[in-house]
């Protein structure tokens, strides 16, 4: 994640090179493999890492906010309506409008408004799934836990959250795919990431750039999704083993 420290520099460096390259691209075919080979480590890899960084940080923050809010909303039903109304409002704002709005209220161009926007987009999905997950815990399981002398805190951490985990991870999967997509647009406000490859590729009519960016974003979304599926299976083996009644 070193690239996160100096995104503007690396972005500029490769924009410069991209312009350079576009001069001779006509002769090299649709994808300029030579350019790709030469600039892969300096330009493509940092953009890719920056993209992962943006999404990972945004998701981590979103989860850190959604988990307590979701737990609160599951306990105090009155909060669920307002929470979903507010986060639902964020979710409906078009991403461009969201970025412009964040700049308008005083954020300067860079990683911060990008991450804030990505967090806001994830909240609705995550909070809703935390609440649904907690709701799916059978009441008799909670009753038995209480009847055996677990404290409220122990019931939450040892019973409710582990049982809600598959549903929460299902929310994470939707959120991560959404965030990886929207993060492409975040490059417009200086967030960096694969969006820089895509947009400068389009502006400069250099397909190698935007195809690389798009392919990597797609691969990233697919592998993040698979990673969550795997993690969930690892953490909740019980949910996938049923020999049925016998």
């Amino acid at each position, binding site marked *: 994640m070193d690239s996160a420290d100096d995104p503007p520099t690396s972005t500029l460096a490769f924009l410069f090179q991209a312009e350079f390259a576009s001069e001779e691209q006509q002769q090299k075919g649709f994808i300029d493999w030579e350019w790709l080979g030469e600039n892969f480590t300096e330009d493509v890899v940092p953009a890719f890492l920056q993209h992962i960084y943006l999404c990972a940080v945004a998701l981590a923050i979103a989860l850190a906010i959604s988990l307590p809010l979701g737990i609160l909303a599951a306990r105090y039903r009155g909060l669920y309506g307002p929470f979903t109304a507010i986060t639902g409002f964020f979710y409906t704002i078009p991403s461009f409008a969201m970025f412009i709005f964040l700049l308008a209220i005083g954020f300067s161009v860079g990683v911060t408004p990008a991450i804030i926007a990505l967090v806001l987009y994830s909240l609705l999905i995550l909070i809703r799934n935390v609440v649904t997950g907690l709701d799916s815990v*059978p009441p*008799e*399981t909670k009753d038995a836990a209480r009847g055996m002398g677990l404290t409220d805190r122990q019931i939450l951490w040892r019973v409710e959250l582990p049982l809600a985990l598959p549903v929460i991870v299902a929310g994470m999967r939707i959120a991560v795919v959404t965030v990886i997509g929207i993060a492409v647009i975040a490059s417009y406000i200086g967030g960096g990431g694969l969006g820089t490859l895509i947009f400068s590729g389009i502006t400069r009519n250099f397909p190698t750039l935007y195809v690389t960016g798009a392919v990597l974003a797609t691969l990233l979304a697919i592998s993040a999704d698979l990673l969550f599926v795997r993690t969930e299976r690892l953490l909740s083996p019980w949910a996938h083993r049923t020999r*049925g*009644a016998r």
Partner: protein
Amino acid sequence: MIEFKGVSKTYPGMDTPVVRDLSFTIEDGEICVLVGPSGCGKTTSMRMINRLIEPTEGEILIDGQDNTSMSGTQLRRKIGYAIQQTGLFPHRTIADNIGTVPGLLGWDKARIASRADELLDLVGLAPDQYRDRYPAELSGGQQQRVGVARALAADPPVMLMDEPFGAVDPITRDRLQNEFLHIQEDIKKTIVFVTHDIDEGIKMGDKIAILKEGGILAQYDTPENILVKPASEFVQSFVGGDRVLKRLSLTRVGDVDLEPANGNGNALPRINAEWTLRDALSEIIGAGADRGLVVTDGESNGGSRGAITLDSIRKISHGAVVPRG
């Protein structure tokens, strides 16, 4: 010993109490069945013992000590708890489920593991085969066995059981009931057992507390006395029209004085000594005979212990007292 002293419970916002001025004592080592129609407060009464519900009035003493003298969680760790839907933790293995309370009490891992195996044996599940499974991999009957094992884990002197055999088919339920009574002969726990099924109550209870709507104690006595001397019309109708037959189901054939099995026994129906008189009656009438040959489990024709006649069954149903086996 569990003593209810003037216990009432009224939920906030309700005019009438669900449990009203309940006073009775449950002796050590006895199964006390709380039975009654729905809305009679039987589950509420049970849940006030381990303070899952707090009474509005009165007190509950466990071994002379007020159950509010320690925190609710501490209290609950000392009282076994088994419920109808088992409430097993789906994400924990069978061994982990059984080890829940020992874990809370800080037992070391080796002790918890050996206790879990011991209890699986006790409830008739091979530890090697079941300890690492998840609840969803077990049948309903097996899950209820685990539920009972889990309630017994920390060897609590008192156990609360809310229809612990309710969610299985009648044949499995009968077997689980018999096995549990057998276990109870050894462990001698003080058990509060909630059911809506009077037959289960008669079978399981040393004492039965019949509650009626509004949480009023209608009668508290032995099954025998409740069947012979119902205290009110409510009890009489709740117990049902087949009181005489129910009473016969309290006595096992093996506990009755038998007559010598003279003559040719080959034509007579075979009666297992473990059966109740009610089963024996049904078998004898079904076979069109007036007596049955009593045999002990495992023995065939040769090992007859004597004969039981319709006459002797009739006498017992009229009140000849037979001590409970």
